[in-house]
């Protein structure tokens, strides 16, 4: 539903360029700052950071405890902080509960550990249904959660940001944190997937 026609792309390209021209000429925006912001979220801040947090939680029980108690402080130990992650909460999947994160009111998402949200996370179909029919939504991701497993949906209505800590896949005993991180997809940390062996 959000595909852009070529006409739209041309129009938006021109309009966005026009605004940037005015902002830059007025001295209000530094184009190099725009480049730097884009580079930050294209190259440096993304789901690999979150996967590292999850892998460490799986391998270091003390870290997992600190993560559960105060995720903002725990990830800061790993040098992770920042915009849209100022007040981070880690929610742990268990054998009896599966967690799913949404922002029904806009697009709140834990940028500091996952980077920018995917389009579907920001779009009406997901935002409308995640709180009412999460199992139906998960089925569209190919994920079937056992009927006896509770589903807890976290609607990010304030500035708290939620990171799902998936369960560690079976058969990964003794794996390094690096190998474990490769089991953790972005979607697993939103709750629309499980962690799996690659």
């Amino acid at each position, binding site marked *: 539903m959000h595909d852009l026609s070529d006409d739209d792309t041309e129009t938006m390209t021109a309009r966005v360029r026009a605004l*940037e021209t005015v902002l830059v000429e007025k001295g*209000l925006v530094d184009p190099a700052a725009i480049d*730097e912001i884009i580079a930050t979220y294209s190259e440096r801040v993304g789901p690999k950071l979150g996967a590292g947090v999850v892998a460490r939680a799986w391998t270091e029980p003390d870290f997992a405890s600190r993560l559960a108690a105060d995720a903002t402080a725990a990830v800061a130990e790993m040098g992770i902080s920042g915009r849209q992650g100022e007040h981070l909460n880690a929610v742990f999947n268990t054998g009896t509960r599966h967690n799913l994160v949404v922002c029904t009111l806009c697009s709140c998402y834990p940028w500091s550990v996952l980077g920018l949200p995917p389009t579907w996370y920001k779009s009406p179909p997901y935002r409308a249904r995640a709180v009412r029919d999460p199992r139906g939504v998960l089925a569209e991701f190919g994920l079937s959660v056992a009927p006896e497993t509770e589903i807890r949906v976290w609607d990010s209505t304030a500035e708290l940001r939620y990171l799902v800590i998936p369960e560690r896949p079976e058969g990964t005993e003794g794996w390094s944190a690096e190998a474990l991180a490769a089991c953790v997809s972005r979607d697993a940390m939103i709750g629309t997937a499980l962690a799996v062996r690659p």
Partner: protein
Amino acid sequence: MNGPQDLGGQMGFGPVAPDPDEPLFHAPWEPRVLGMTVAAASLGHWTLDESRHARESLPPADYLRWPYYRIWFEALLVLLARHGEVSPSEAASAQVERPGRRPERRLEASRVASVLARGGPTERSLDAPARFAAGDTVRAVNMHPEGHTRLPRYVRGRIGRVEAVRAPHVLPDANAHGGGEAPEWLYTVVFSGQELWGAETDPGLSVAVDAWERYLEPA
């Protein structure tokens, strides 16, 4: 406001259709909008809450139809015009008609890393004790303000349980409208799916929302 942004529980939008190979941006203009939006916020004319309200105040049919960075772009135009930085005719023509108001606040590229790493924490201190405690039964108030609020319609009037007393946080309802930060205690409140959506609902569903103190009353 009961705007198009308040989507929880609405129907008819079709499947989620995740694309596993989705690029981070879908057109070259999208990252420029991201960068301009973040950079222009540093001018300090508006709060995060005011920018959210500008987005949800866009025409509802457009809000639901546009890709998300288009929503950001249109709201950025509204904010820049409202605060006297870029007029609609300047934005349309790419011709500067008046000097910028706050060039001294421009976000320099060298400061981007530290500004992004610091973010914008909303926790504040407050002398007043929290009115509710974990385990309390509460009702989300039935209110329909025309201004900004972060209490979704689908929980209004519904009974839930306080799962966590968080901290005092900046109140969006005030901060979006020049009313200052007016911090209030923030709570995580859990509602059963059946309370929200009726008896036919999956008994294993619960939904947590983060609610400021004024959004709640004893039940």
